[in-house]
């Protein structure tokens, strides 16, 4: 073991040299500890949910750049520390551990998915850290946990929007087809729970695996009950397969999809089968179709311009969750001097914050802060979105 002899002068010199090189290469890092506030980001940047995490990471960086360019928060710059979960709850837990113990962040934005979020919730509660999730599942804020907030519209508002539309069509029997993961489960629970409020009966509820290649069996089983509409709840690519299968079977009843597929990718995947499908979506997807008096129109167009100039790619409907999370956290940080309990209180008291995903008004009993107006119903016609009244 001659390499680890304690008195090796060569080794000592090498270690010193490395230290000097590192210190001089990153002078900003060395002195930034005092002046910046670190905000942690945990997103599924790669892996199956990268369509969420990748734009979220970019939007978070964009929001931080914008806030810093405008002078930061109380004169302090913000700094993003972002980790990738690959959509894996155990990696999300590791990332949260690093953010809390090693990076000592002031607050955390993300994770992107409901399972990854639920995995890190106990950790941020123990660490008493303001936490704004970007995932959709309403289990995250139900029941209310003091430190846990979220920006993504939840299934509650999405289901309410779909049911309001179904009720208007005079349909009272529906079938549901949900993906067998927590996004689908959460959607299914809401679909069953809220059905009564709209005078709707769920006559059959089926599920499919996230990677399944054929759902004709499930659709056939639903069709046997002769429902007036089918609601599919999932994220790509499953719902696109459902759309294709529905066309194959010649299903002539309206097919509703969830906000989980509200992206141009869905139209690309489902192709002609996407025609006529109805779904609720955040307003970002149809920003240019919104009437000028919509309160979010200005914020949305500014964000879309900034994102598309900065990254030279089409804006996604999901990055806004992280953008809102950062802006909400920055707003809550004002005047707190970094005191986490004060940030939490400020977050809870934010009212009428116009964001990308809706107008946020938090309270002690509502940590999502959105109402059904955060969604609009759209129909896919000629491969494009069309606002439905």
């Amino acid at each position, binding site marked *: 073991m001659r390499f680890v002899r304690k008195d090796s002068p060569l080794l000592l010199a090498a270690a010193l040299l490395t230290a000097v090189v590192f210190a001089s290469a990153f002078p900003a890092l060395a002195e930034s500890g005092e002046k910046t506030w670190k905000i942690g980001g945990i997103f599924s940047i*790669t892996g*199956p949910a990268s369509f969420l995490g990748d734009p979220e990471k970019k939007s978070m960086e964009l929001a931080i750049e914008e806030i810093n360019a405008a002078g930061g928060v109380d004169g302090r710059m913000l700094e993003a520390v972002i980790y990738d979960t690959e959509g894996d709850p155990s990696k999300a837990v590791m990332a949260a551990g690093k953010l809390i113990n090693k990076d000592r962040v002031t607050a955390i934005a993300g994770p992107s998915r409901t399972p990854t979020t639920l995995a890190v919730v106990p950790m941020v509660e123990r660490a008493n850290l303001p936490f704004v999730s970007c995932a959709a599942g309403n289990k995250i804020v139900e029941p209310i946990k003091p430190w846990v907030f979220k920006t993504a519209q939840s299934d509650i508002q999405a289901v309410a929007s779909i049911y309001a539309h179904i009720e208007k069509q005079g349909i009272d029997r529906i079938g549901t087809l949900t993906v067998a993961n927590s996004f689908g489960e959460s959607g299914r629970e809401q679909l069953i729970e809220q059905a009564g409020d709209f005078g709707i009966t769920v006559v059959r509820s089926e*599920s499919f695996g996230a990677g399944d290649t054929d759902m004709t069996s499930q659709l*056939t*089983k639903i069709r046997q009950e002769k429902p007036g509409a089918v609601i599919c709840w999932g994220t790509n690519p499953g719902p696109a397969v459902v759309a294709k299968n529905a066309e194959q079977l010649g299903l002539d009843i309206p097919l509703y999809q969830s906000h989980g597929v509200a992206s141009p990718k869905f139209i690309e995947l489902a192709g002609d089968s996407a025609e006529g499908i109805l779904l609720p979506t955040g307003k970002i997807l149809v920003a240019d179709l919104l009437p000028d008096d919509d309160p979010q129109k200005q914020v949305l167009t500014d964000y879309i311009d900034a994102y598309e100039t900065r990254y030279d790619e089409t804006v996604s409907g999901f990055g806004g969750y992280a953008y809102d999370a950062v802006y909400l956290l920055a707003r809550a940080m004002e005047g707190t001097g970094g005191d986490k309990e004060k940030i939490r209180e400020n977050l809870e008291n934010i009212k009428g914050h116009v964001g990308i995903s809706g107008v946020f008004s938090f309270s002690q009993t509502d940590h999502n802060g959105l109402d059904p107006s955060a969604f609009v119903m759209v129909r896919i016609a000629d491969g494009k979105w069309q606002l439905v009244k």
Partner: protein
Amino acid sequence: MQELLQYLFSGMTNGAVYAVIALGFSMLYSSTDLINFAHGEFVMLGALCMVSLTAGAGLALVPAFFVTVAAVAAAGMLFERLAIRPVRHPQPIVLIIITVGASIFLRGTGMLIWGKDAHSMPPFLDIAPIDIAGARLLAQSVWILVIVTALAAGLHLFYKKTLTGKAMTACAVNKKGAWIVGIPFKWMVLLAFGMSTGLGAVAGASIAPITMSSYDMGTILGLKGFCGAMLGGLGSLWGAILGGFLLGILEAMGVGFVSSGFKDATAFLLLLLVLYVRPQGILGTAEVKRF
């Protein structure tokens, strides 16, 4: 009745795909005693190559299909030459772990080349689904069934009628004996790898139009194909086909008559049952060795 038929169609479509994948597993096993756990990844490569060549490069279907199969078979042979043959002590367990590693490597490569999103492509023939007694069958499913039948017949002839096929069978029966009578054993293994991964590519290229292809589709398809091969009897040509179809149809029936929540459970429960009652599989005859 209409429902039953629809479940059967759905099961046959999936089953045919499982059968082609199972064939790949089975034929490689019979000529090399090796289970290639990266096989599902070759299916993925086939599907994504097909999408790229048709939707991306604008190649016509038939040439795209053959280029895909040839390219993936070449990748499979390269894999054998670079990762399997150089192993100094080729015990089965070592080789199997190498294939697991290769599957992770290929999935990563797939993600780098094709990105993280799913891709889709139009069907081989853009015609309306065929209506049989109220149940709908996609034209693409008919294509897949035709391809499976052709492959099975082709492989059967290859093993029974050609010298190369017989030589490959000889290698499977007794390596040393085959070597003594002058059969180039190494070439046979290389060929088996090429054919097996080529079969994977056929499966991938044929399902690309009916489902979505993404870099991570291979794992579950590989598992299902492996189940099919085990079910029918590993190493048996007709067993792989029977196992694949059985698995697909039972899955669809499970969804239809039990619950869609148990779809994947059906497959694996069935596998456990078969392994318990008849470890050599339904049509398998060779004594099963444990390693």
